């Protein structure tokens, strides 16, 4: 029979060294961790929580002492602690940078949004039910009128034109340049387009995690219009960059993307050309 996993509180005591004097219990847990990778992962996740609480300052005196005198002795855990600090700092900065003071105030209630939404639905629903009977006759009359009106419209009016797409997506392949003699993609961008999403395919990318400089230049003037440092999404045989280009940077004309590996400055940058036409 498969042995059940120890409770998180017991694992916590184990990690703080409080079971070291209870030989049988301690050995039982150690042996379970040794042979059960799921439990080992749970133990590591509880390690993370202890570190979080240590950084929050929410541990009581005895736990704090155990953390400092026992738990944090291995270098691996000191590094985890250090990384947790960096991570917390990063997300705290992001949160304070991105939250509008008014929105931020309401964001505090985010955990209660489902309950608030439920209360609102109930109130609106009750109000609706109390009035619906009074309006039933009127609505039926209106419905009859609307049906008659719709039939007239279908017979007399042409179908509306489909709405233009809000985003333009196009794919380029590195090496596809005018100089290479391959046909250059012509991209049609509607004036109503709000987002331009570009995919550039790389045939032999470096390993995942190596950033590249991606530059957009006007082929006519050579002026750099936009640049970014991007990571490719690497699959078994190729890689690709997927990113947004601000719409205002692309007008009708010829353009070139230049991609160079930041980790290998000696490598030759690769290019791809394309032609843009803005209009309906």
């Amino acid at each position, binding site marked *: 029979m498969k042995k059940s996993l120890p409770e998180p509180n017991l694992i916590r005591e184990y990690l703080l060294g409080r079971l070291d004097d209870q030989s049988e219990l301690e050995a039982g847990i150690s042996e379970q961790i040794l042979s059960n990778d799921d439990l080992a992962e749970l133990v590591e996740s509880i390690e993370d929580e202890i570190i979080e609480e240590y950084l929050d300052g929410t541990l009581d005196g005895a736990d704090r002492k155990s953390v400092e005198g026992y738990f944090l002795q*291995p270098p691996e855990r*000191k590094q*985890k602690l250090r990384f947790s600090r960096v991570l917390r700092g990063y997300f705290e900065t992001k949160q304070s940078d991105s939250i509008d003071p008014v929105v931020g105030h309401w964001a505090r209630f985010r955990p209660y949004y489902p309950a608030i939404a439920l209360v609102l639905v109930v109130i609106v629903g009750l109000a609706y039910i109390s009035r619906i009977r009074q309006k039933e006759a009127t609505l039926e009359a209106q419905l009859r009128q609307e049906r008659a009106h719709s039939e007239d419209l279908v017979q007399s009016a042409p179908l509306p034109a489909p709405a233009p797409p809000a985003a333009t997506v196009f794919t380029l392949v590195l090496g596809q340049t005018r100089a290479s003699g391959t046909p250059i993609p012509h991209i049609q961008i509607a004036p109503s387009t709000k987002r331009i999403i570009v995919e550039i395919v790389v045939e032999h990318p470096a390993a995942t995690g190596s950033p590249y400089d991606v530059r957009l230049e006007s082929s006519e003037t050579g002026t750099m219009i936009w640049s970014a440092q991007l990571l490719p999404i690497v699959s078994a045989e190729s890689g690709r960059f997927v990113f947004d280009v601000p719409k205002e940077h692309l007008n009708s004309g010829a353009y070139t993307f230049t991609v160079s590996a930041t980790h290998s400055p000696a490598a030759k940058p690769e290019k791809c050309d394309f032609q843009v036409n803005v209009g309906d």
Partner: protein
Amino acid sequence: MPLTPESFGRFLLWLSSEEQQAVREYLTVRKRLVRFFIHKGCADPDALFDETVDIVVGKIEECANCSNPLGYCYGVARNVWRKYMREHKVTIPIDIDPPSLPPADQGKEQELKCLELCVGMLSAVDRDIVSRYHQDKGRHKIAMRQTLASELGGPNALRIKVHRIRKNLRGCVVNCVKRSLN
């Protein structure tokens, strides 16, 4: 005492006569025993693992037909840990920021750049989870984590999910910083 190449070779042969299999076995034994020493709060888990292997190598003749090398090594590791406990009863003051990492602003700046890149590589769902997990303070933080736990199927599911995301991010940042130093 560091493990000698001869001891290491004998140890590998004991794990398996087939070279590739021996290396795989070694990595498993190493991962599990180093993790054991970390869980026991030992200051130098790698050195204690080497000490364990050294002792096992000295007893290889006794356990030539041992059917469970990991279990045997674990038994020796527990004795090494007990000895360590006896010798290190006095608490060692800790140095929370390891001196081997670049302490200068430049290193930290690079680490943050790498973190930004690595967070950007997470899936939208994972990014949302880790960001909400680190939001707010005090009771708002507790409420947020309760919400996340109910969305993900309970506190253990949340623990594991956040742990995996953080582990992934940490590995990504470490590799990114290493590359930037080269």
